[in-house]
């Protein structure tokens, strides 16, 4: 068996999600190759070559792959995939955008959001917002799957695989990149943070969302997340959203501030190691999953918490 892992990268660097996906590939077992498709992406390819357990890195480098548009990356993956038993991508917005397009052209099913590998053809995945865990078996010749990164540890580095240049195909000519607006932050990435401070509708305004949570996040070196209600209300940017349809996170410590705990939100954070909830409604469902609950007004509790941490 040989497994192709599609790297998550921004040309200059490799994203941590790739490391978790390589670990999932190791659970299946077999030679692991990593595809880096991009433009001027040698640095990302070098980083991929250093992942322990990777046998080879394939670099498809061309202008039309610079923004990794699905229309242009798909032919590269389809061409390669026929030589592999499994193709894995992280279940990030990039992986979710790309892999089903590849699957359809290969005429195979895709298994989304794999959280465990039972065998080479049997995998475990959540459905219904994580309220049900399904074990599914694929009879397709090539198994395509996206991997829930929080369910697998990051692979170690220290390897030294060879980097091989491969054909990058040509521009499909159907789509073009216009612009990107990335949230600028000096805080850790939500998906990789050890501590997350997450805010809900109770913050009541965008101004308060930031003025109350940011000092706490800075004190803890934490990433900031939000419930869907807070994002819908415009208190926080969309990429802060934790939940069934947002980001799935599993930090060491998840601090839910003014979040009631709808099942769609719990689906995104209930695998966190320790959950703390601060909410003035003692009946809030978030307390049913919290290890430590504090029934209090967040506007007094959060400043007190910062003061206590400063002691």
């Amino acid at each position, binding site marked *: 068996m040989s497994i192709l892992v599609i790297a998550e990268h921004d040309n200059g660097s490799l994203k941590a999600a790739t490391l978790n996906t390589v670990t999932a590939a190791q659970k299946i077992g077999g030679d692991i190759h990593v595809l880096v498709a991009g433009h001027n992406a040698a640095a990302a390819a070098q980083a991929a070559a250093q992942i322990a357990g990777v046998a080879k890195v394939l670099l498809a480098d061309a202008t039309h792959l610079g*923004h990794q548009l*699905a229309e242009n990356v798909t032919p590269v993956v389809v061409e390669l995939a026929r030589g592999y038993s499994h193709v894995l991508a992280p279940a990030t*917005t990039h992986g*979710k*955008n790309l*892999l*089903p*397009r*590849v*699957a*359809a*052209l290969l005429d195979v*099913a*895709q*298994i*989304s959001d794999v959280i465990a590998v039972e065998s080479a053809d049997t995998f475990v995945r*959540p*459905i*219904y*917002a*994580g*309220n*049900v*865990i*399904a*074990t599914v*078996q*694929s*009879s397709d010749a090539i198994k395509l799957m996206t991997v829930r990164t929080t369910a697998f540890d990051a692979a170690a580095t220290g390897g030294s695989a060879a980097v091989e240049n491969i054909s990058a195909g040509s521009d*499909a000519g*159907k*789509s*073009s990149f*216009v*612009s*990107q607006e990335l949230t600028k932050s000096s805080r850790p990435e939500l*998906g990789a943070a050890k501590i997350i401070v997450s805010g809900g509708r109770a913050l009541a305004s965008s101004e308060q969302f930031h003025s109350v949570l940011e000092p706490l996040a800075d004190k*803890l070196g934490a990433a900031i997340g939000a419930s869907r209600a807070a994002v*819908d209300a415009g208190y926080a*940017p*969309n*990429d802060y959203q934790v939940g*069934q*349809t947002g980001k799935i996170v599993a930090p060491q410590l998840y601090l839910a501030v003014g979040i009631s705990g709808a*099942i*769609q939100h719990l689906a995104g954070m*209930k695998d966190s*190691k*320790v*959950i703390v909830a601060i909410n003035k409604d*003692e009946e809030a469902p978030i307390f*049913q*999953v*919290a*290890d*430590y*609950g504090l*029934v209090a007004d967040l506007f007094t509790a959060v400043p007190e*918490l910062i003061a206590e*941490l400063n002691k």
Partner: protein
Amino acid sequence: MKILVAVKRVVDYNVKVRCKTDGSDVDVANVKMSMNPFDEIAVEEAVRLKEAGKASEIVVASLGVKQCEETLRTALAMGADRAIHVETDTELQPLAVAKLLKALADKEQPQLVILGKQAIDDDANQTGQMLAALMNAPQGTFASKVELAGDKVNVTREIDGGLETVSLSLPAIVTTDLRLNEPRYVKLPNIMAAKKKPLDKTTPAELGVDAAPRLKTLKVAEPPVRKAGIKVASVAELVAKLKNEAKVI
């Protein structure tokens, strides 16, 4: 310009589903069913494009059991012009759905196909991308803004880390994210009017599509329940617990 919208009938988002006692499947008998929330957003977006004079006709399709008719009637009441029901009792997986929608697109020749980004039952997030591949068309997934501009559509996408805008040649596929719009409430007169709108029926066999599932569900189970912990009385106690007991700070 014609728009094709696909809608799925799913267990209502407020229902907490249970597994059957034999673990073979999820028990959906006698639970409330609704249109997949992302698909409601898809219908709404199509209706707004028509109201803005940018689309001429909205065709809405649903695939599955007889009761999908109800979902289609809801879409018609929201403002779609006509409906197509691909009726089957077979379990439809995303690849089969994409093939069936491709067959419908071949007949209808829409310039834009709008779908929800994922269904809240199987949480697959695949169908739109698969359909785009089969139609050899570009895709704007997880859309938070859709702007038609001549023979192109500009789609702003919700991606990890922020937003990305791409320009796609028509025909194109768009899948909706939560912030694209807020679907309207359907009013009674519209529900009555929707009963008179055309609803055509077809089947996978008539469309020449093999819709057999590719993945076999071996078992389903409920995840281990996370136990509620303790309530602390003060911020000081919370910090002490986090430091000394949980050792996470």
